[in-house]
């Protein structure tokens, strides 16, 4: 799951696909993803993992790293 999320983030959000990111990279507070674009992640998670995460659970603070995302996805 982590690798799939990282691949999607590289493709969807990063202008330079060679930018190094890992499960603890701060994506939103680090300026790589703007919080308004999180909807792409929500759609991807629903499609790829069959998990519909309610919008209020997807915030700049709760979805800042892939590790955090995985924790939330696993709650559903």
């Amino acid at each position: 799951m982590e690798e799939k999320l990282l691949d999607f983030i590289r493709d969807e959000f990063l202008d330079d696909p060679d930018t190094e990111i890992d499960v603890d990279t701060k994506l939103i507070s680090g300026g790589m993803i703007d919080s308004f674009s999180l909807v792409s992640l929500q759609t991807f998670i629903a499609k790829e993992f069959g998990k519909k995460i309610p919008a209020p659970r997807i915030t700049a603070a709760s979805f800042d790293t892939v590790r955090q995302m995985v924790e939330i996805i696993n709650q559903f």
Partner: protein
Amino acid sequence: MAYSQKVKNSYLETLQTIKDNGLFKSERLICDVQGADIEVEFPVGSAHKQLINMCSNNYLGLSSHPEIVKAAHEALDYRGYGLSSVRFICGTQDIHKELEKRLSAFLGVDDTILFSSCFDANGAVFETLLDENDIMISDRLVHASIIDGMRLAKAEHDTYKHSDMAHLRKKLEQYQDRPRKIIITDGVFSMDGDIAKLDEIVALAEEFDAMVFVDDSHASGFIGKTGRGVHELCGVMDKIDIITTTFGKALGGASGGCVSGRQELIDLLRQRGRPYLFSNTLAPTITMATMKVLDILEASTERRDKLERNMKWWRTALTEAGFIIVKGDSPIVPVMFYDAKLAQAFSKDLYDEGVYAVGFFFPVVAQGQARIRTQLSAAHEMSHLEKALEVFVKIGKKYDILGKSKEELLQIKL
């Protein structure tokens, strides 16, 4: 007491956090009319300073133009100061309808509806025109008012990488089953000064049966051969479904804005656009002064032509001097420093030397993309630009940044 110490402290803490993060904004007092030369008091209480203004949206130099000021004075005598009403109760004067007609002709659209600001215009569009089955696909760098407008709508939203047409296509394919799709972009992007590829966007919109929305606030009046905007520049004058723009930048600089576009869309906004229904009508002074702006722009392209000359000279001069600028064809010319501290120090030195241009850094722009945004105006004479360049070069030498690459700039430690 309802406003307890606990509540008060919560706000003080937030303010302190803003200060601790270096993001606290202080206002500079302009003790003058808006123009290329301004007298500024900063900090409040200090001696006034004469500055060359390189950071206003006064692109055409009309903000304090005598003919515009005169038109506003005349409006006071002709149609009064205010209407004390929203448009649909008793706030629509003949001049409001006349301005709407004039703007429609200028922009080449069916109809126009006025708003108190373009922020309000962008706040009205999406909520009114789309429902929960529809999809909004926006460029990732659109203006904050569009983002807020989209947040108000029930329609789903998604974004595409800045000006990346392949990514936009991918999104259109993804959502092609939606009944109504709308592609949303700025005409000129305010932070980078680059221009939307509207011709390519329109081609994609036609292929996927999507509407096109453009906020042309940083373009109306001067982009395109006769200043109609990015749709004129890109040769798609009759292909844009919704244009929003402001009167608060090139078109006089006071305030107010509009939505212009397809007849049915404007008709529906008049019925259901909440900022239109529940906010006051545009003041007669602004309404008539904006018509005078259109008179000036329709009579001659002299002002936008001068702006274009200034823009080309400034872009070339900065590049030849060894600065890194974001390439483009708009009068928004960002000078790149990448490092926030360097941009801040440079901006302060510019101010001390008599040039007013503001630094932008994260979170306003992406991390590691700190810059000083310079903006050209038709009010600038060559003497202003030569002096500003001299100051930029002087400070550039002080920090030893001229001719340096991005990587080299990032090595500079202040």
